[in-house]
């Protein structure tokens, strides 16, 4: 009889754990730490980058971090940015759907889902002074300025200096120190 009870117990335990696991998944955090870190990175990029003067003043009293396309951060980004300021300006998050709406943005994060339209987006952004960040693969080779890279279990990033220079952005050497790759493409962007 004991054997029969034991087996039942084991099954119950396994079932409960599956449920728990599934429960926590259902809370909607796909990879919660990764995007928290990236949100923090986004904010911190703003601290190591200088925008051209006329652009900074034109963009008013807030430092806007925009997300184009599907928002992978959710409330995490807002929570991270809450109460923060860069250069005396309040940091706000903004979701946009078309690249043309990025004129008010200092930093623009492209969601991975936008990989298909990347070229078109880059064309539009080419004229602006927005710091483009994405975790789209080969983003920095394709004209993007900062690309998130996952090394081991750490979030690293690559920097495309040509792109930043073309946009008139000045990146602190400090930032470059921690970047994994710094691309300088004298031949221009893609």
């Amino acid at each position, binding site marked *: 009889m004991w054997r029969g009870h034991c087996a039942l117990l084991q099954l119950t335990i396994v079932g409960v754990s599956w449920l728990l696991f599934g429960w926590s998944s259902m809370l909607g955090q796909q990879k919660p730490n990764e995007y928290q870190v990236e949100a923090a*990175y986004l904010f911190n990029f703003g*601290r*190591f980058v200088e925008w051209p003067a006329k652009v900074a003043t034109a963009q008013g009293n807030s430092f806007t971090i925009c997300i184009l396309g599907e928002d992978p951060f959710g409330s995490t980004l807002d929570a991270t940015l809450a109460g923060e300021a*860069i250069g005396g300006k309040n940091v706000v998050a903004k979701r946009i759907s078309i690249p043309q709406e990025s004129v008010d943005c200092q930093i623009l994060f492209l969601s991975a889902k936008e990989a298909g339209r990347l070229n078109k987006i880059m064309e539009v952004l080419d004229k602006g002074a927005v710091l483009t960040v994405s975790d789209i693969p080969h983003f920095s080779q394709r004209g993007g300025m900062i690309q998130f890279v996952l090394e081991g279990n*750490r979030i690293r990033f690559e920097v495309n200096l040509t792109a930043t220079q073309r946009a008139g952005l000045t990146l602190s050497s*400090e930032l470059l*120190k*921690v970047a994994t790759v710094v691309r300088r493409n004298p031949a221009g962007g893609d």
Partner: protein
Amino acid sequence: MLVSGAALLLACAAFFAYDLYTFRVGIVHNLSTEAKIIGSNTVSALVFNDPHAAENTLSALKASPHIVYAAIYTSDRQPLAGYWHEVNGNPLPLPPIPAGQTQAHWFNGGQIALVDSIVFQGKPTGFVYIRSDLQEINDRLRSYAFITAAVLLISLVVALLISRTSQRVISEPVVQLAQTVRIVSRDKNYAIRAAATGNHDEVSTLIESFNEMLGQLQQRDTALHQAHDELEHRVLERTTQLAVANKQLDLRNREVERATKLKSKFLASMSHELRTPLNAIVGFSDLLAEQTAGELNDKQQRFVGHIKQGSAHLLQLINDILDLSKIEAGQLELRRENFQVSSALPEVLSTIRPLAMAKNIQVEFTLKTERSVYADRVRFKQILYNLLSNAVKFTPKGGSISIDCFEKENFIGIAVTDTGIGIRAEDQKVVFEEFRQVEGSADAPVEGTGLGLAITKRLVEQQGGRISLESVVGQGSRFTFTLPSVSQASNAAQTGASVPAAIPLSGGREKPLVLIADDEASARELLASYLEPQYRTVMVESGSEAVRKAQQLLPDAITLDVLMPGGSGFETLVALRRTPETANIPIILVSISDQKRVGFALGAADYLIKPIRKPVLLETIRKHVLPYTDDDATILLVDDDPSTLELLEETLRSAGYETQSVRSGARALEVLSSKVVSAVLLDLLMPGMDGFEVLRHIRQEATLKELPIFVITGKSLTKEELALLNAETQALFQKTGSWHQQLIAELERVFHEGKLAKSAGIY
């Protein structure tokens, strides 16, 4: 050397300490800077959580060998990256920074640890923790110490070298100079000179000046010695001179002393030599005049009168001259005592009164003070007598003389005022000089010796007083003299302390009292003058007053004038006899007429017919006043001078005494051993045994101890002799004036005392 070394050391130590401090501060500062640099360079590593980047930054610290450990910590105090200089190890725990600070550092274990907080764009991002060793500082310290030591040593060596040189150039000469000074002042040798150095510097200037000074000193010293020698020589001269002068003075002193001694001896002996014969002249002429040796006819009386006058004058002159000599020789001995003027006055007055009465001059005496005068009693009376006799002399008949005694500050003043002829202004200046006399006029012939006032003045002044004169010609003169007085307080002590006078007055209380009743003033005065000084007298003018006074005073005898208004003598007599108190008083009737039988019938004790002769009166009174006179009483007279003896014999016999005369002291003692006498009259200056020796012998005999002895002498006595005589004898008479009246009085007194004692059973 020591000083410079110590100074250097001190300086080095100070700099060292300061440097150490500054260096430490510097180290901290440097470390802080390094930490900050590290911090700012690891910001992105912290922000983007990149340990590698941090490590890269930290590795740059290799360049600083003193950094032992450095690490970056997140704001959660978790180590991000660490750096070990020597050996890789684990990151150390982060020490906390004290609140309120962004940085802190600690020195411990030979290392300095510093924590700095990394702030990026206002946000605390992490911490830097650096540890550095203090090797550098120690190295620095070491090198510093080394350098210091080196510098010190070198400086000292240099200093030593320099001091050697300076010593040679400066201190040696100076020390030598000091030594020279010491030698010079020790040996007082100013010939020494300091050695020159040969250089031409300040020190040699000093040496030169010093030598110059020594030269001057030497000169002065020599001069000083010379002066000193000269001075000594002069002093010696002067001393010799002084010694000689002293010797001369000494000799002269001795001469002067001798001269003074001779003078004193002269005075002493002259006194005796002159007075003794003069005494005989005066005495006998007195006796003659008193008709005790028999009645004289008119011519004889006149002759005797002349003799009396002449001798009295001579005596006065001699007394005055001797007095003056004594005063001049400073040998006047004053026996000063406190006494009332009122007690000394009566004697003088009694002598003056007859003279005044003769010219009908009134004499008044006013006493305005109770204070005593401090003076020589005898001399006081002499002064008064002189002034009064002058007053009488120069006041015409019917005039008046007043004597005022008053108080003036600490003096008693006595003014003798007369209504005489006065003294001219120019004469007033000279009256007090010797041998000066005012020119006489027809009715005031010149009398006196001219010495009276001179002596009076000196007597007054010698006793501490002053004499002055006021006079208006034709109106009168006033002579005022002052003598020191005594306060009331000492009055009480005066009577016991005084030295007895040369001529002791009979104690007033012992003298019998005679009441004189007569309506005529002159008659009263006359009787009074006869009776004084042996008896006290009280005068009354009428019979009724006589009765009253007799009851009041209870006299020893009463003389009663018969012919008196307001109760004739007889009535008074009866009244007196009836009154029980006065019944037993002997009454002697005095009258011009002879009514003896009536008188005796009415109870008179005796009856005398005017004019009364003095001895008669005296005898009569004596008979009745002292009825217990021992008729067997013999008085022994001792004197080597026969005339004196005879004088004494006459005087005493006339007073009713028996006498025996001897001419030497030895004989006197013989008589005394074989016979009982009632008194001895003793002369002092006798050949063989003198009076003093006799006195001594007498007093040694037990039986003769109480024997009354009266000394009569012309010798001027010394204080010691006087004291002796006062102690051993009953009375002392000096042959200066009319002493024989006194004598009788004294004898009576002594006998009276003796009788009282006998009757009281003392003998």
